[in-house]
């Protein structure tokens, strides 16, 4: 990543190949539309290419930086889309139709990590999983979620914190998953 600010396209290609999979998966999870997810990822990576110098290793991993940008753009795109055309039908099922790639070791490791993280999230009590998903994948604030669920804001904050804490414990040691 250190080469990217200097305009090294090869270095950027490595970054893309390493993180495009999780990025596209995240964008699709947020947007629910393949076309929109592709646009989001395309624009996100090109914006990262243009702003590579702003990456600060002290503030987290490259993956966290890339996926943070993708998530924000995906949520923005979804909001613009909803505002523009609430009648559109999501192309659910497109993702299932994507061709299965030959699994490289990296891809296999990513899928395994994905399975572990999903198990940790799915292992939470529904009310905790729900608020985390609404916040992270839906981009809603805690007050919006409180309105949506008709639950006090303090309860929403508590569920978020408790859910994340339980997830952390589960990810550290899956055998100790707390119900």
């Amino acid at each position, binding site marked *: 990543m250190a080469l990217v600010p200097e*305009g*090294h*396209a090869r270095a*950027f*290609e490595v970054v*893309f*190949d390493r993180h*495009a*999979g*999780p990025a*596209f*998966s*995240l964008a*699709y*999870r947020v947007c629910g539309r393949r*076309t929109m997810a*592709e*646009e989001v*990822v*395309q*624009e996100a*990576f*090109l*914006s990262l*290419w243009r702003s590579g110098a702003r990456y600060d290793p002290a503030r*987290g991993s490259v993956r*966290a930086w890339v*996926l943070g940008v993708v998530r924000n753009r995906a949520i923005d795109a979804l909001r613009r889309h909803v505002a523009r055309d609430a009648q559109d039908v999501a192309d659910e*099922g*497109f*993702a299932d*139709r*994507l061709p299965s*790639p030959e699994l490289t070791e990296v891809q296999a490791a990513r*899928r395994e*990590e*994905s399975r572990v*993280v*999903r198990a940790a999230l799915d292992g939470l009590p529904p009310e905790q999983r729900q608020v*985390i998903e609404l*916040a*992270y994948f839906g*981009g809603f*604030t*805690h007050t919006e*979620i409180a309105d949506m669920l008709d639950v006090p804001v303090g309860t929403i*904050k*508590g*569920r*978020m*914190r*408790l*859910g*994340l*804490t339980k*997830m*952390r*414990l589960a*990810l550290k040691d899956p055998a100790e998953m*707390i119900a």
Partner: protein
Amino acid sequence: MSAHERDLGRVQSDCGRDAGAYVLDALEPEEAASFHRHLDACAICRDEVQRLREVVERLPLAAPQLAVPRSLRRRVMRGLRDGGAQGAVGHGAGRRPWRGAVPGGPFARLAGATPAVALLGVALLAAGATYAGVKLTEGSGSHERVVRARVTSPAASAVVRVHAGRAELVVRDMPAPPVGKVYEVWLARAGRAPAATSALFDVAADGSAAVDVPGDIRGVSEVLVTPERRGGSARPTHAPVITARLA
């Protein structure tokens, strides 16, 4: 006291009750600013935020992991080689694919890092045919064959790029499919009914799209596109709007 109990006990503390919402970016802006200031003075909350942030950084992987469409990679790399500084690019094929760029422009940036790519670009400029301002290699017997397709919409154009047994369909100025429908790509082989593919697509606002044609293209006589219901059809229900004869 176990690690679980200690961690869960910390959650009961009121200090840091905003930590979860903070790392999820779910606080209102004023609250987030206030909590951010609080972090400067509170080591307990800083630790809490750090711990919870580790979880949030892994949350994207809770999404089902999908394959990256090859056409997406190509579009990003194309945008990058176009200079990447001209603002957001559209969804489709792009207006100025890198192969058509002038040597010494965007290629100069790549010269040190990817000489083979730059040389390929120069070779294409020297030997290629011209299509919509882009140098192509149809009939040259070199790396890529480009077939111009017949399109029913008068304003639209489409080409199929064939390379190493695989194909990409690139359309421009194509009208959007009818409401509730998508475009579906079919592969026809001599004497057989067109076979459905998993390639379903819509076009960007400017009518462009670049679609990978799944599977091995060898033996395919025609690539067809029809509007079909979302999710695709097993058999074509409309006449083709795009027909590319490969053989």
